[in-house]
């Protein structure tokens, strides 16, 4: 124990980067500021407005789903040859968005990136809500959604078992495992903060509810010891999990033989795309939230800059994926592969492809410039471009690959209907409704982890 143990609370000398926490904060101020958002008696008016809009959209989702149950998937634009439309596009889009939460909470934890602390909680919440939206789509597109449990292996009177060699079965296991593990990871992270809310809540209902959720957490050193081990192990388990989930989602396509799907580049390209989309969504949410709640001290310019850098890096991987798809189409010397790319460039959906290039390849290049990287409105606009771009990417993969495959006699066009859009925007409403409820009732920043970042937490050398 001769080595000095110093927790870097502020950037070390010579580090010109902005700090990861504003100056002058103590254990008390960090606790009070974050818990006040939840424990305040007054809910800001914009919260009601925002929640109202989001909840109306969620009701639209309910309406669209009810109508779907009554009429069947004929109300959507899907038909042969495009049997996978908005449902699968939205599924992949949402699940991709979820991945940034796990990346921030697990991978950046293992890499000891301390700046993750102030964004990991709501990024994890974002993961959960995005996975909830994603999980709806494969079930809804089953045709008879009420029989979705046939996908699960259970002893049944029909004496049949699922086909475990199918990527669609892998998907069932991957997505349900991902949702479960993300939920547990998020909840474990919340326990000490729930105890804080229990102790600081001024009304009885708050004390009882937060008290039950905190399960009697008392901050014992013995408990922290196991808690930290469990948290680290969960991070270690979540890291390969998050990679496996989008890899398996990409197998839904890559294992098929359709030109535009059958590509070995798909797993890494999907994982990078997921992180790209997810960071864009974290940015989209973080920028208004820090403003609305005055959290600029906790989510600093450094965080936004780092997230922008991750976006740029993963954006370049995605651009490499597009390049390789084009290259392989030529290099394979396969007529169908070549046609697939020609059709993307000049076919009836060419405008989608070129919009995708503008959103996902050109827009993030502005992040190279420090002036853009430190300009909050510019970052928000780029993040919005990426959100749209990643949706278009899935449109290209799903629809454009399917609409013209091997036989010209079986070509067709895909036109989404009102119900496709209603379901899609409905899930955005569901996502935002859950997010509004989350920021109102749970601490959106991990309080106990923020305490470790304040200067007071520094342990003096002579004691170590």
């Amino acid at each position, binding site marked *: *124990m001769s080595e000095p*143990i110093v927790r870097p609370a502020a950037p070390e000398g010579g580090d010109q980067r902005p700090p990861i926490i504003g100056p002058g904060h*103590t*254990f008390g101020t960090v*606790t*009070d500021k974050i818990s006040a958002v939840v424990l305040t008696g007054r809910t800001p008016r914009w919260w009601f407005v925002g929640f109202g809009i989001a909840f109306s959209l969620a009701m639209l989702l309910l309406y669209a789903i009810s109508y779907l149950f009554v009429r069947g998937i004929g109300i959507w634009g899907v038909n042969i040859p495009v049997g996978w439309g908005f449902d699968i596009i939205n599924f992949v889009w949402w699940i991709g968005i979820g991945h940034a939460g796990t990346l921030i909470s697990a991978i950046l934890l293992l890499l000891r990136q301390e700046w993750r602390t102030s964004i990991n909680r709501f990024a994890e919440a974002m993961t959960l809500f995005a996975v909830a939206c994603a999980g709806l789509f494969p079930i809804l597109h089953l045709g008879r959604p009420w029989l979705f449990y046939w996908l699960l*292996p259970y002893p049944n009177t029909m*004496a*049949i*078992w*699922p086909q*475990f*060699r199918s*990527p669609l079965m*892998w998907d069932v*296991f*991957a997505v349900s*495992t991902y949702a479960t*593990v993300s939920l*547990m*990871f998020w*909840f*474990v992270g919340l326990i*000490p903060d729930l*105890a*804080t809310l229990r*102790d*600081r809540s001024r009304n009885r209902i708050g004390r009882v509810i937060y008290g039950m959720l905190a*399960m*009697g*957490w*008392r*901050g*014992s*050193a*013995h*408990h*922290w*010891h*196991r*808690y*930290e*081990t*469990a948290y680290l*192990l*969960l991070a270690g*388990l979540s890291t*390969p999990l998050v990679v*496996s989930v989008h890899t*398996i989602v990409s*197998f839904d396509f890559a294992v098929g033989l359709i030109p535009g799907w059958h590509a070995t580049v798909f797993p890494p390209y999907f994982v990078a795309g997921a992180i790209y989309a997810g960071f864009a969504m974290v940015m989209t949410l973080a920028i208004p939230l820090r403003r609305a709640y005055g959290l600029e001290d906790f989510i600093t310019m450094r965080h936004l800059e780092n997230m922008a850098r991750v976006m740029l890096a993963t954006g370049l991987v995605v651009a490499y994926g597009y390049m390789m798809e084009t290259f392989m189409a030529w290099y394979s010397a396969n007529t169908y592969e070549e046609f697939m790319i020609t059709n993307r460039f000049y076919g009836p959906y060419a405008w989608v492809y070129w919009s995708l290039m503008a959103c996902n390849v050109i827009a993030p290049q502005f992040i190279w410039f420090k002036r853009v990287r430190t300009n909050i409105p510019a970052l928000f606009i780029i993040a919005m471009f990426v959100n749209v771009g990643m949706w278009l990417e899935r449109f290209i993969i799903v629809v454009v690959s399917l609409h013209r495959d091997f036989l010209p006699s079986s070509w067709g066009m895909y036109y989404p209907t009102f119900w496709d859009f209603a379901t899609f925007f409905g899930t955005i409403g569901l996502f935002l409704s859950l997010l509004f409820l989350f920021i109102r009732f749970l601490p959106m920043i991990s309080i*106990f*982890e923020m*305490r*470790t970042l304040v200067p*007071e937490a520094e*342990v*003096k050398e002579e*004691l*170590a």
Partner: protein
Amino acid sequence: MSRPPIYGLMAEFTEPNELIAAARATRDAGYTRVDVYTPYPIEEVSEALHLRRTRLPLLVLIGGIIGGGAGFALQYWAATIAYPVNIGGRPFNSWPAFIPITFETTVLVAAFFAVLGMLALNGLPMPYHPVFNVPRFALASRDRFFLCIEATDPQFDREGTRRFLERLVPRSVSEVDH
């Protein structure tokens, strides 16, 4: 062994360094039934209290092995014994195709073991605990640090231990009722 009249004696500190020093001094004085309550995890405190390594990683490993084994066994059994489907003479036990699900069930069960194991070893959920009887203890989840010497400690003496704790210059020392 009859129950001691109080749960223990608790000292409050305002600063993590004071607490680490106090935890060391308490250990050095020979107290063994000691617990420390902090608003965030402090590695040095675990070291000062000589906390043993936790068995949790072993539990998680066992969970992972159970999950992986059961996941593969389920697929093997379903695909070769319960419901074999002959597709162009391909082998029933097509194990590479079973790997993705085996991986997922491994992670799933290991994660359950990590979370439930942590809670079980910590004895949570615990609806009642004597330390909450100290009114100021509510600050343990905000910005204060507490050290509690429990009355079941062989060296515990209501007066002597109080004098010992006061020598550590805490903000206050209070008795913890059962």
